[in-house]
């Protein structure tokens, strides 16, 4: 049973791979119905699947593929010409085949799918239809011997199959010699071409000869060459015979059996044929690969993530050590090791990332078929031009990107490309072109979807949006053209007058937006009326390890995925305006709505005296927003970690990461923030008026507050006495820990702190550096009052963030003056002095 499962697995993997290429080939085939290389490839798929499925006892699948094979076999023998009608049936049968394979994958059985109708149609083509079809084509091209032609080919097909199997076997043996094959091919080709002009009997004899020769010949080189030769010729064998003979005959009415006169005509073809088969050998040059379970790769990626965190930490420690032991010899060595580790980690990370990369062609492959179906359905002529399908991106992203692209392309077909009449009226060619292109840009991959259709009219979009209640008229007024294009992504928005099979429900583009947001991607739309639309999806290359911008608000830090950061600007607070209760600012020629990160994350804004603010301009999908933060810390590579089920899906938080210092930093969910910004109450501008902390207006001396921190009661008394005449409010604390707690409680807003150095629990230096860790106390004056008067002590005081250093004993006046200066005391001193 296990063995069977194993074979089944291989069969499924192989079949799905074959089918992937199939759709594209089939659509191409419709354009070039005589391309036998293509036909053979398609035939081979049906044949392979048939063979394997009959071995595995999948009767329904075998039944279906058998009939497909019949049709394709006739087609490649030129007995029927593939037209759109036949193609529809073939495509239908391929769909059924896919469905069957999926069923087999899920249930290990090929039941529950009705194939009989399709099989009947297929056999109708092989039996009934073909005489209707073929005579017409043949009568047109074949002048002399239509009757003689057919049976001959039928006889041949058996040999053909045999040769085919033989060839497949040898192809594998010769894989490593593929290059040489390619070279030899051209030469071989000219030789082989002669066969095509031989009579069928001759051809058969020739094949016989070749087979014998092959058996007799010594292995390697010979076989490789013949295999290569065979690859093309046994296609031409049958292919050029029907396809070309008639032409040769038509140009020179000499019997095809004489090779000489046909040669010139045949020579022209090989040149052409040469181009087509060329990719075939390269496709068979299988690179050496191993199949690896994706779970293992995921695990590897997780481990690398841990390593990156370790590296970050190492760098941080290295910096600290450098500061502390400046000039020490071992530092250089440490430096070297750290740089090597960091370098190797980065390389390793890139290497592992690459193993997870898939070409985007995997996704693109299904679109030619889709466009074909859509254009038939919509009665338009549309062609798809694909480029950059070899561009690679992370597997998880490849899986996510398919759906959005389907919707965008459907949209382009339905709304973008006009009907044939309209196109002709507008002076365009009747065939609309949709371009699908992928390329790398920095750490992103850009997928660009273009159409040469009608383009979008921003004013019309706005009108419809207002009609449908998606936006208000006021909003419409301030909307830029780009924002108006963005309206198509709003749920419930559709420009289609009626709901069709293809579009009009107002759902599809919403899906696009959601999925792209999930990937931290950006959508950019450009459209010009009557010229067409260009849509760009900018997606980060990978999801697990990302570059982030670290920002600070009060004493908290947050990481914003750099992929969503468009730019950062430093502004004056008076550049912020309020429109309809929303904070906005002018950014060049745009109006950018603003939201303060503290409002989103409910950060208590205790201290905020700075006149400047930093605005991080975030862009996601098609929207932009400005996020106000207190500080910009820098850029760092972070690894996204889940916060567990317990805290999963908290608003605005995408996850957490561990920083170099071992602390946890939360990662901002940009998409959620944009949503939250709409409802969150804005206090961006309110703060200017009310203010808090030191910015509060002082109307009397007692509005000033100073904390005295000293473990000696006497010393506290002395200071209190000295400062009493000023009339300011004094708060006392007995050591660093208590002072810190008072400060943190936010109950008081201090204008200055007087700190003793020698204290139990937490000394003055530690207290000062603790306080300075908090953003909001950056400008709070700390004054040391101590009996330590050494120069080293003073230095330490400065290092820990003290602004003044008063040595005991001191005169009351001196203390008063220092305090007054530091709290910017503006009142005349009370008459007591």
């Amino acid at each position, binding site marked *: 049973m296990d063995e069977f499962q194993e074979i089944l697995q291989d069969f499924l993997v192989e079949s799905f791979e074959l089918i992937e290429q199939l759709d594209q080939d089939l659509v191409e085939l419709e354009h070039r119905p005589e391309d036998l290389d293509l036909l053979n490839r398609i035939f081979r798929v049906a044949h392979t699947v048939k063979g394997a499925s009959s071995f595995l006892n999948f009767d329904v699948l075998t039944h279906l593929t058998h009939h497909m094979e019949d049709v394709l076999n006739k087609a490649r023998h030129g007995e029927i010409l593939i037209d759109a009608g036949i193609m529809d049936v073939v495509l239908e049968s391929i769909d059924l085949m896919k469905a069957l394979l999926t069923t087999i994958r899920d249930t290990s059985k090929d039941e529950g799918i009705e194939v009989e109708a399709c099989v009947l149609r297929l056999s109708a083509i092989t039996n009934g239809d073909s005489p209707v079809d073929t005579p017409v084509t043949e009568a047109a091209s074949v002048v002399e011997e239509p009757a003689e032609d057919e049976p001959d080919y039928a006889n041949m097909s058996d040999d053909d199959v045999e040769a085919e199997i033989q060839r497949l076997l040898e192809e594998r043996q010769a894989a490593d010699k593929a290059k040489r094959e390619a070279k030899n091919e051209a030469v071989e080709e000219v030789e082989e071409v002669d066969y095509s002009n031989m009579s069928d009997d001759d051809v058969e004899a020739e094949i016989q000869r070749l087979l014998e020769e092959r058996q007799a010949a010594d292995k390697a080189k010979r076989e490789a060459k013949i295999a290569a030769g065979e690859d093309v010729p046994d296609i031409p064998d049958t292919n050029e015979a029907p396809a070309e003979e008639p032409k040769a005959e038509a140009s020179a009415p000499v019997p095809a059996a004489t090779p000489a006169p046909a040669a010139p005509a045949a020579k022209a073809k090989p040149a052409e044929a040469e181009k087509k088969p060329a990719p075939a050998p390269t496709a068979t040059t299988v690179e050496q690969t191993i199949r690896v379970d994706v779970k293992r790769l995921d695990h590897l990626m997780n481990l690398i993530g*841990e390593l990156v*965190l370790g590296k970050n930490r190492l760098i941080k420690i290295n910096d600290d050590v450098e500061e502390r032991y400046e000039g020490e010899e071992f530092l250089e060595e440490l430096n070297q090791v750290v740089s090597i580790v960091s370098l190797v980690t980065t390389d390793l990370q890139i290497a592992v990332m690459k193993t997870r990369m898939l070409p985007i062609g995997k996704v693109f492959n299904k679109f030619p078929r889709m466009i074909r179906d859509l254009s038939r359905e919509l009665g338009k002529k549309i062609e798809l031009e694909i480029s950059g399908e070899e561009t690679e991106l992370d597997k998880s992203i490849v899986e996510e990107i398919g759906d959005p692209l389907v919707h965008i392309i459907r949209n382009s077909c339905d709304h973008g490309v006009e009907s044939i009449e309209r196109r002709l009226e507008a002076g365009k060619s009747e065939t609309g072109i949709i371009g699908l292109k992928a390329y790398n840009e920095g750490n992103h991959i850009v997928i660009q979807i273009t159409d040469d259709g009608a383009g979008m009219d921003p004013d019309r979009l706005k009108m419809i949006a207002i009609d449908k209640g998606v936006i208000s008229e006021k909003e419409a007024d301030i909307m830029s053209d780009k924002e108006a294009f963005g309206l198509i992504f709003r749920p419930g928005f559709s420009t289609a007058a009626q709901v069709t099979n293809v579009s009009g429900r107002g759902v599809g583009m919403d899906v696009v937006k959601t999925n792209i947001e999930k990937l931290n991607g950006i959508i950019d739309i450009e459209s010009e009326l009557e010229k067409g639309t260009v849509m760009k999806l900018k997606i980060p290359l990978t999801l697990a390890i990302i570059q982030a911008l670290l920002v600070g608000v009060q004493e*908290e830090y947050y990481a914003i995925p750099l992929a969503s950061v468009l730019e950062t600007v430093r502004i004056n607070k008076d550049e912020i305006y309020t429109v309809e209760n929303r904070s906005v600012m002018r950014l060049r020629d745009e109006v950018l709505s603003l939201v303060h990160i503290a409002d*989103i*994350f*409910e*950060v208590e804004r205790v201290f905020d005296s700075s006149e400047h603010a930093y605005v991080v301009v975030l862009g996601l999908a098609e929207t932009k927003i400005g996020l106000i933060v207190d500080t910009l810390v820098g850029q760092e590579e972070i690894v996204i*970690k*889940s*916060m*567990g*089920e*317990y*805290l999963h899906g*908290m*608003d*605005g*938080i995408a996850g*957490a990461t*561990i920083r170099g210092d*071992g*602390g*946890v*930093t*939360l990662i901002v969910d940009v998409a959620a923030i944009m949503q939250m910004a709409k409802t969150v109450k804005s206090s961006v501008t309110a703060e200017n008026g009310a203010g808090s902390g030191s910015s509060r207006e002082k109307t009397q001396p007692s509005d000033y507050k100073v904390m005295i921190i000293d473990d000696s009661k006497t010393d506290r008394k002395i200071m209190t006495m000295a400062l009493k005449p000023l009339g300011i409010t004094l708060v006392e604390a007995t050591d660093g820990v208590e002072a810190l*707690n008072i400060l943190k409680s936010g109950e008081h807003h201090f204008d200055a702190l007087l700190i003793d150095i020698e204290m139990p629990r937490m000394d003055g230096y530690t207290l000062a550096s603790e306080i300075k860790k908090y953003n909001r106390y950056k400008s709070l004056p700390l004054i040391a009052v101590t009996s330590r008067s050494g120069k080293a002590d003073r230095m330490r005081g400065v290092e820990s963030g003290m602004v003044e250093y008063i040595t005991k004993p001191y005169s009351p006046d001196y203390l008063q003056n220092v305090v007054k200066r530091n709290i910017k005391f503006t009142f005349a001193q009370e008459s007591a002095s």
Partner: protein
Amino acid sequence: MSDKLQQIINKQQNQMTPGEENMENIVQLVGFVVGEEEFSVPILSIQEIIKPIEWTRVPRTPGYVLGVFNLRGTVIPLIDLRLKFGLPSEAMTENSRFIVMKNATETAGFVIDRLTEAIRLKKHEIGPAPETSMQEKSMIEGVGKQDDKILTILKVDKLLERDF
């Protein structure tokens, strides 16, 4: 691993059949104090107990969710049991600990005021939760009677369940 699991299952099965006074019938608990009261949880649901370390606030969570902390590379939620039990918040002291508890799906740290002791209770010494707290919502698994004092045994699954 599966041996261990088997043992646990055996033990639990044995606990369900009261009366047998063998070793298997003993429940091991870890006792701790939150506020004025002593609570306990089964030792098997405790991953580890650590001294308080730095944590990061997570916005938009109820007050008792203090945030998340880094436990050797894993980000773990931190819950203050004082606040969870409706007691006033108090600064952490020398004796405060984070008890990291886990069940099949979830791991979280809980702040407690101080540890007491490891307790062995016989199955028959554990009574059901008081009538008033018999509802679904109750966090109380049962009440242990030990010499002169009463010990509340908490439901770990309930503690680890997100209720917001």
